[in-house]
């Protein structure tokens, strides 16, 4: 006997046979190997049964020879289901549209939460975010990844010292740590001011305390500059010394600038390819061109596609292939020297802080050797050399 449920896939029909000589007709069917099942007598001249869809034309031949009439009264099974689906296509379109919409909505930014920021900063952050393309209703594909958002935000808004970016489902969480303006403690503990570095005193400005040095004095690191003990002998008072002591400090810097430098630069030419990865099988969607660049760098941007809260095994990938070119930069001797001086100066400035002033520079030594310019430069810098040292009160 045949398994009944497989009939469902091939499709079957319910038939009604009317006539007087039904039994001979049924015998004929059996002889021609047309299987009819669930036969029931409906009246003296009618019989109903089920028949496989593929046997219909065989049955037609048999019925022509007999005196019976054949009627189809029902259609069942998968092929008819498909037909009905096509005729009721609105229903199917609805289902597909619902799935697509759910898929789209699951991959959208729905909420942006900012915590830890005051209202003004929060407003600024939201403004910057919307400028970067992070808005409610944006798809995750078009949004840069979290690290980029983080560095971009920290770069654009100097008043935040750290921002944590977390993508939680469809909502972004930004945890902001504001930069606090460091206020000098009002109540300073009693202290001296001592020298940080070896220097020659250039100038000083003391708010509180007893200066122990004069202009043009030479000081060593750790030497007392301003004493926190004031007053005449016997009537001394211990106070926190406060003030600035500017010293002239000599810096020597060595710098080497090669006359010829080769480095890779992007030419600006690029090709973007889009693909979908399904279970690690990559299917390209757009951008089928072959890459004709000699040198290039590939940047991969991958986005996981979500359905409601689950990650689907589908990854949307954008590949940007940028052409690179080797660029050789050549300097003549004069420009090399001036560039060397400039870089040395910038390096020094970064090292000594904002308040310091470079008073003078002298090139001590200059040589060209192996295609490189070597410079030794001497700088005179004026900077604050005072650093506090608490007075430890005995007894």
């Amino acid at each position: 006997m045949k398994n009944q449920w497989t009939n469902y896939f091939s499709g079957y029909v319910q038939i009604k046979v009317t006539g007087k000589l039904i039994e001979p007709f049924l015998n004929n069917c059996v002889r021609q190997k047309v299987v009819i099942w669930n036969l029931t007598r409906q009246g003296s001249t009618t019989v109903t049964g089920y028949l496989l869809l593929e046997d219909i034309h065989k049955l037609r031949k048999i019925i022509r020879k007999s005196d019976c009439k054949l009627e189809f009264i029902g259609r069942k099974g998968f092929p008819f289901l498909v037909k009905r689906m096509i005729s009721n296509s609105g229903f199917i379109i609805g289902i597909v549209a619902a799935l697509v919409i759910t898929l789209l909505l699951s991959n959208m930014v729905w909420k942006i939460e900012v915590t830890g920021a005051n209202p003004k900063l929060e407003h600024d952050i939201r403004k910057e975010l919307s400028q970067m393309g992070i808005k409610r209703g944006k798809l995750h594909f078009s949004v840069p990844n979290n690290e980029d958002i983080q560095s971009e935000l920290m770069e654009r808004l100097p008043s935040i010292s750290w921002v944590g970016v977390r993508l939680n489902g469809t909502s972004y969480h930004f945890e902001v740590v504001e930069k606090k303006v460091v206020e000098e403690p009002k109540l300073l503990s009693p202290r001296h001011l001592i020298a940080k570095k070896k220097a020659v005193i250039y100038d000083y400005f003391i708010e509180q305390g007893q200066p122990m040095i004069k202009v043009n004095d030479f000081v060593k690191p750790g030497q007392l500059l301003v004493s926190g003990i004031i007053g005449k002998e016997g009537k001394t008072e211990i106070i926190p010394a406060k003030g600035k002591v500017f010293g002239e400090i000599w810096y020597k810097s060595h710098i080497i600038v090669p006359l010829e430098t080769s480095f890779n630069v992007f030419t600006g030419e690029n090709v973007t390819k889009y693909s979908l990865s399904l279970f690690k099988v990559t299917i390209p969607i757009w951008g089928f061109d072959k890459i004709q660049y000699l040198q290039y760098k590939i940047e991969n941007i991958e986005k996981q596609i979500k359905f409601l809260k689950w990650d689907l095994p589908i990854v949307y990938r954008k590949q940007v292939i940028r052409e690179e070119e080797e660029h050789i930069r050549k300097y003549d001797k004069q420009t090399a020297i001036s560039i060397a001086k400039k870089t040395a100066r910038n390096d020094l400035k970064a090292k000594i802080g904002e308040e310091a002033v470079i008073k003078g520079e002298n090139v001590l030594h200059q040589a060209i050797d192996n295609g490189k310019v070597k410079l030794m430069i001497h700088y005179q810098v004026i900077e604050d050399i005072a650093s506090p040292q608490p007075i430890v009160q005995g007894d």
Partner: protein
Amino acid sequence: MRKFRQQIKRWVTQKMELPADVMMDLPRVTMIGQIHIYIENHRGLLQFSDKELRLLLKQGQLLIKGEQFVLKTMLPEEILLEGKIAQVTYLDEPGK
């Protein structure tokens, strides 16, 4: 001659303990309670209604009576009938 052959067959079947339905072209009727009846080795359908099923056999006919008959399957030599079976009767060929 035919009768003689039948007798030989019967004798062989009895002596050699061979299945009777194979040797003698007899119908094999399997019943499951009252609800199913399964007939193999028949020679065609003679009459079918919801109260009666008449089958042609090699010798004679088989008459099944009952209620709510449904022919579940019909294959060249097999029939599966479902319903409430009341009686199964063998009818001898008239005139023999």
